[in-house]
């Protein structure tokens, strides 16, 4: 290992190199810090520090002899493998799931026929993406759209769907729902949960002949109970909560799978609201927001969970005309690995993948029904023909 890799100051590094110490092993011959101090013309404590750092780096180098620069690195092959084993949360709209990178996964589903099942759980969706953080694939997405387009509906749907048991191709996890706008309505969540359970039992009946045996034991109440709901009234609360989540998630871990948390998704509805007032210092706002995004990303990685952030849209004044843009500025949008924009096209709601490292840009129609997010009725027919 070369000297320039040591985490010491540039001037110390310069002095070491000009004194002829180019590699770690050359430093190992030095016995006392005072010798080094004399040679480099630095204080004794400084020299001591250099030696400490050097011996520490040497230690880690030997212990990790087999590989590479960074501890815990993985080959791309391994990462792909990990990614494919990842679980996915359905949005309940097969089309939407489709553009989110899944395609229709389950043969059973297609065989039975779409009319009743296009809605169903198993129409698998994978939004999987790797991040620069390495080893683990995490899901970090930002969803934006005008008021009334269905952001909150999608948020609630995801919080419900994450609980679909493993037997039904779900994750069997729990959800953290952070509500900053007060738009989460319990009665609506109950409705969506009820419909989700109904869909599951219908699916069950198709799949297994013996209906009695595998009746769904889940109740809408159970689903509501597994959504950890936090209502936030200011941005300081929001930051505090996200700092606290680490502890909260550690306390809600699975007993048998030490590394995996029971919570499989964090929905923030919306990240934006409290940051659109009181901030005169935009640079400060950007820093605070990126700090928050970084923390969420770390949570996603540490606990293998998905983070879904809902964002508002705003008008941007460019060249004397107004355009629609996601709120909170560009640097914030860069932080998010996936960005989905919801918009109206004629009389239909559409979702468009605006940015993603692994998904093609595509759009799909969806609709908001009494039962939750579903395929839009016109595209349902299209899929049926396939």
């Amino acid at each position: 290992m070369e000297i320039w890799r040591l985490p010491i100051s540039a001037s110390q590094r310069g002095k070491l190199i000009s004194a002829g110490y180019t590699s770690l092993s050359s430093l190992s011959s030095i016995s006392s810090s005072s010798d080094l101090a004399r040679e480099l013309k630095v204080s004794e404590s400084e020299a001591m520090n250099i030696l400490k750092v050097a011996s520490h780096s040497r230690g880690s180098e030997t212990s990790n002899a087999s590989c590479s620069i960074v501890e815990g690195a993985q080959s791309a092959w391994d990462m792909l493998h990990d990614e494919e084993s990842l679980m996915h949360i359905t949005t309940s709209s097969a089309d939407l799931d489709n553009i989110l990178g899944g395609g229709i996964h389950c043969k059973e589903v297609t065989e039975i026929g779409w009319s009743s099942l296009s809605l169903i759980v198993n129409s698998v969706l994978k939004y999987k993406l790797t991040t620069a953080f390495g080893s683990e694939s995490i899901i970090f997405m930002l969803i934006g759209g005008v008021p009334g387009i269905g952001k909150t509906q999608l948020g609630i749907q995801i919080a419900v769907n994450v609980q679909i048991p493993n037997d039904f191709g779900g994750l069997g996890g729990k959800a953290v729902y952070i509500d900053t706008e007060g738009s989460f309505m319990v009665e609506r969540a109950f409705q969506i949960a009820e419909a989700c359970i109904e869909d599951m039992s219908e699916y069950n009946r198709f799949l297994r002949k013996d209906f009695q045996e595998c009746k769904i034991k889940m109740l809408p109440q159970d689903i509501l109970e597994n959504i950890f709901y936090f209502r936030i009234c200011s941005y300081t609360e929001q930051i505090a909560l996200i700092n606290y989540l680490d502890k909260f998630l550690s306390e809600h871990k699975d007993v048998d799978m030490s590394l995996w948390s029971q919570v499989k998704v964090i929905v923030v509805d919306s990240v934006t609201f409290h940051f659109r007032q009181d901030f005169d210092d935009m640079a400060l706002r950007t820093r605070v927001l990126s700090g928050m995004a970084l923390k969420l990303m770390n949570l996603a990685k540490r606990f293998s969970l998905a983070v879904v952030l809902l964002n508002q849209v705003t008008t941007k004044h460019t060249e004397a005309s107004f355009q629609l843009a996601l709120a909170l500025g560009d640097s914030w949008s860069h932080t998010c690995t996936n960005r989905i924009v919801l918009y109206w096209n004629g009389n239909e709601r559409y979702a468009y993948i605006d940015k993603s490292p692994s998904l093609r840009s595509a759009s799909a129609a969806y609709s908001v029904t009494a039962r939750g997010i579903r395929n839009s009725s016109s595209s349902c027919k299209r899929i049926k023909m396939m």
Partner: protein
Amino acid sequence: MTPQSLLQLTSQKCTTGCPILDRLLYGGIPCDSITEIVAESGSGKTQICLQLSLHAQLPVSHGGLAASSLYLHTEFPFPFRRLHQLCLSFRSSNAHHFPVNDNPCDRIFVQSVHTADHLLEIMSKTDPFIENSKNQVPVRLIVIDSIAALFRSDFDNTPVELKRRSSLFFEISSKLKALAKRFNLAVLVTNQVVDLVGPNEGINGLRIGNLVCLHTSGRRVCPALGLAWANCVNSRLFLSRNEEVIREENEKSNGQSCDFVKKKMRKLYVVFAPHLPESSCEFEITREGVFGVER
């Protein structure tokens, strides 16, 4: 910080005083949430506000909140006469809930608001006011009629001013939501409309919510205060008013002469709401108040 249990969290509603409208709204105006009514002047915004502040006093078993209300008005003068009129019919139809000498108007606190800063100042005072009113009949409803009047004159149409304006929206909205959450209040806000002129719709023609475009009195309109404010409310309702010409056969004469009678057609639409599907309902305004019409 502990998560709230959704099983104990029930969204209470405040009845509008009309079963048909209540059915459309799944019980009325929800607590811990901001509901906005958008309409041109003379459509019945204020009527609904007045009626709601009376019906909030009904016991919970009758769909009310058993509470008094705070009525912030920005448009002058406050319609005391109409409130009194509504109050009389409200009392006569709900006499058994109130003592003989009781006047429901006593439980509507009216405050005038002149500017946006004034509104913020009042809201900071509202906190202790509601706290102190707890031992009497608590305040569980805030009405702001209308929010648009505060913003339509004070700001220039420059990017800097618009930014300052939208920052104020978010400040007001988050303070209102904090109040609503703390005291479990229902908040009803009214908003005006602006006309959309010309083929070039621009940003005002942007579709928000269930309706492709809003029509009232034969014109195409959009809610005032723009997209920023639309992000600040949880639910938005729209009232339209149209004059319909109905041909009425005059039966007194030999049945050949026809009278053309103009009839006001009022309709309430759900533009967006987290808990309501796209729906609409006709309504009419009578001496006794606002009532839905079933067809």
